[in-house]
Structure formats: C-alpha cells, structure tokens
C-alpha cells in the first residue's frame, strides 16, 4: 500500500520552477533513495513532503501530495501534526546545545507530554532503537554537542523517532560522517525500515545501491525514472539515468 502518493507536483521558488510534474508512489516500510546531481530538486522534494518549504518566502505549489490518503496541501491542514508524522534528519548532525536528555524529549515536550516517567520510557526506547543507550545511559545530562559526529547523528534520529513518526526524511544524513560511521548509520537505516518508511537523498551512488529498495533519479527538477534499485542500477530504462549511473554525467 502506498503511504505517499504524489501527483503532478510543481514547485516554484518565486519564478524559478524547482520541481516539474513529479508523480510517484512510495510504499510503506521501504527505503527510497533519491539520487541525482546537486540543485535538481531532491531536497526540495523531500522538504515538500512535510512542508518545511513553507519556511521559505514566496514558494508556490501545485499538484497533490497524499500522505496516508490525506492531501497535505489542502487548506486548514495541521502542519504540526503533519511534521510529527513526517520527520526529518538533516545533512549535518544538529543537536540542540542542550543535554542528551533534553534533546531526545524535545519533540515530546513540544507535543505536550509532561509526565517524567513517560518521557523517560520514550527516551530509553528511542536511544535503544539507535543503539546509543548503552553508550549514553550514564551521560544523559552531558551536553549533546560533546558527542562524536556519529553519536550526534544517531541522537538526532533518536530525537526524531521519539515523537513516533511514520515517515523519516533523510537529507544526506551521512555526508558529514566518516566511512565507518556511514556504514553504521546505513545498518541502522536497514533496521529502522521495519518500523518506518524512509526516504533518503544521497549523492553517494554506492550508498543508494546498498541501502535502498527503490531509487528515483532527479534531473533538473524532473523525476526521470523511479523503480526497484537493482533494476535502476543494472537496467535503467532512460538513457539519462544510465549516463548518470555509469558516471558519464553528473
């Protein structure tokens, strides 16, 4: 069953059209990789799915985006609920300059959870899910900025899954990490897909090939091709995809 259905999505920054007639379906509990050269709309597309693009002045959207069958661009939609359901992991690890504890429970508190025991329970569960609990259970009061880059990115993922989203949007989540950390985060993604639907933007084609079930190729604001990752990488239908995959372009 498709959890995200996008039909004819056009996206404009002022007069510049960043996305052209994007249509795709995204299945539940799969990892979808969005690949393509820089500036071709991958991040814009990702951010249009939880309407983080609303934070930019003068943007215009046409077409429909259904998440769980609900049109997220219909007037009167609750953006806070939408973003709770569709969460985001950013390129650089960006914990708040707060303690580990306050970072993980930030979203919960924002959504009104106060009970310390409930917070504690979710904290433990979230940190366990990203394999940070054993490392950090005695350092919950430490400032999160003192953690390593990989720990910080795991913490950001824990902070996100604490609010129990359904969809995780990951915008090049490993680009600021070294190889070993990248491998660990990729393993984590494979585990997380059992419970969440993941979209990942990546410039690293090996990474897309390794972690994703489905891959979509964006070029100049268009979705050139989308399909099973193995097929995209072995038998792309569009010659432009082939050029990019084989390194002739991009």
């Amino acid at each position: 069953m498709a959890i995200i259905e996008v039909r004819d999505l056009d996206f404009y920054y002022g007069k510049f059209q960043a996305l052209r007639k994007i249509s795709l379906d995204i299945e539940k509990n799969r990892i979808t990789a969005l690949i393509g050269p820089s500036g071709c709309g991958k991040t814009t597309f990702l951010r249009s799915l939880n309407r983080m693009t609303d934070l930019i002045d003068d943007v215009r959207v046409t077409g429909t985006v259904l998440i769980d069958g609900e049109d997220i661009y219909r007037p009167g939609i609750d953006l806070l609920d939408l973003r709770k359901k569709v969460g985001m992991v950013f390129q650089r690890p960006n914990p708040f300059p707060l303690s580990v504890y306050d970072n993980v429970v930030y979203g919960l508190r924002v959504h009104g959870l106060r009970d310390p025991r409930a917070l504690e329970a979710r904290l433990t569960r979230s940190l366990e899910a990203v394999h940070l609990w054993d490392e950090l259970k005695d350092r919950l009061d430490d400032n999160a900025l003192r953690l390593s880059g990989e720990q910080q990115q795991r913490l950001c993922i824990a902070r996100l899954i604490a609010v129990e989203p359904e969809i995780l949007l990951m915008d090049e989540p490993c680009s600021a990490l070294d190889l070993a950390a990248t491998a660990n985060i990729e393993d984590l993604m494979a585990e997380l897909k059992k419970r969440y639907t993941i979209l990942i933007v990546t410039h690293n084609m090996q990474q897309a090939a390794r972690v994703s079930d489905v891959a979509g190729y964006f070029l100049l604001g268009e979705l050139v091709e989308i399909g099973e990752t193995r097929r995209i990488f072995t038998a792309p239908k569009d010659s432009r995809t082939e050029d990019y995959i084989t390194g002739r372009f991009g």
Partner: protein
Amino acid sequence: MKRLGPRLEEKAARTGLWALTLITVGVLLFIIFYILRRGLPVLSLEFLTTNPMDMGKSGGIFSTVVGTVALSVLAIVIAAPFGVGTAIYLTEYTWGGPLTRIIRFGAECLAGIPSIIFGLFGFILFVTKLKFGWSILSGGLTLAFMLLPTIIRTSEEAIKSVPPAYRLVSFSLGSTKWQTVTRVVLPSALPGIVTGIVLSIGRSIGETAATIFTAGSALRMPTSLFSSTRTMSVHFYILAREGISMPKAYGTAAILIIAILGINILTYYLMNRFIKKYS
C-alpha cells in the same frame, strides 16, 4: 617616494598601530584616574548613604543614587520587553519585507537622535501633555524610548546569531513558532540579549540631557513614581555648572564611573561566555 620594502613597512605599521593604541588607552586611563584621584577622597559609606544638604554643598548623594536606580529600573522594565519583543517579531515572524525594513530603519534613526531631543520630546509629551510632571515616571518613559533602538538592535543580532539549523529542527519536529522561539532561540540568544540590556542600563545611568528635562532636579528623596528626582549625572552637572562644590561633583563622578565600569566589565564577561558557547 621609494617603497620601504615589506619588512620595514611591517615594522613601521606595527609601531604606528602600537602608538595609536597606546594613546587611546592612555587618554582613557587618564580620564578615569583624573576623576578617581579627585573623587575617591570624597567617597565614603556616608557619602553614599546620606542625602545631599545645602543644594549639595554638604551631605552625600543618597537621594540621587535612589533616583538614578529608580529611573534606570523603570526604563529597563519598560524598554526590555518592548525591545526584545520587537526584535523577535522582526527576526522570526516577518519575511524581511518592506514593513520590516521600515521598522528597522526607524529604530536605527531613533538610535541616532541626540538624547537632548528625547528630553525635549519627553518634556512635551509626558511632563506637560500627559501631566505626569517632572517625575520618575516621565523620566523613565523617556529613557525607555531612548534605549529601545539599542535593545532592539542588540537583541536582533543575538537572535540572528542563533544557528538556523536549530529552528529547522524544531519546526521539523512539529513545534510552533512560539515554542521554537521560547525553547530554542531565546535560550541560545539570551546572553547576547542580556548583554544589550546591561549596556543599556549603563547608558541610562549616565544619561543627563534626557532626564534633566523629564525627571527634574529635586533633591528630596523620591517617594513615588510621580516624585521629581535628580539623577547622579544631573547632580554632577548642577554641582559643577553652578560651582556649588567641586569635591562633591568629583565624588559623584567617581561613583558614576565606578558603576559604569562595573556594568561594562559584567557585560564583557557575559559576552565572553556567549562567544565561548558558540565557537
């Protein structure tokens, strides 16, 4: 002219800059020491805690200290929420459109207006039109107007220096703007905002022209918001100008300098902590 060559040029520049710095610091220290040397002998606990007598010829400066503190506190209590609120609105709630630019430009113009004009404005509006008379209320309101631009400006800078990523993350977790402002932006910007407010306190303590027109120059101990009062800097001005007592004038000046130095040192300390936290 023949060029000196980079090494000699470097030496000349270093010496020149060193001399400029030395002169600057020298002048500053000279002023401070000059006043302290004349003022410190007058200072005593008694000077601080007794009221002026014979127009200030004898006695201490207690009522002027009280008047100064009352005015500054009132000014800050009014200006800080307005200033910080405006700064939050300008930085977080607008897209930087024409209206924002007009407000910001207005605030900057306000910052450039000589304080005596504020004094005149406060005199016309608060003292005569609104009939508050020469009072702590009129003076405090006038000072508040005068401090607003500084507080808006410094708060805006502090808020802008909060990494945008914090806001993005906060919104992406489903926070409202206000939650983001109160939970992430303000705590990070607080040291910078406080620095601006503390600097403003320093300015309001030293302000003379704006308060002499609005708070008046009564030497009696103020008893309410509607009492006229004399600030330390006005007291100093009158003592020196009318030749009432130069020693008492220097004593007052010394207290002023010590207070403002103290405030600046505090600001410096806060600023350092702020910078350390974000580097």
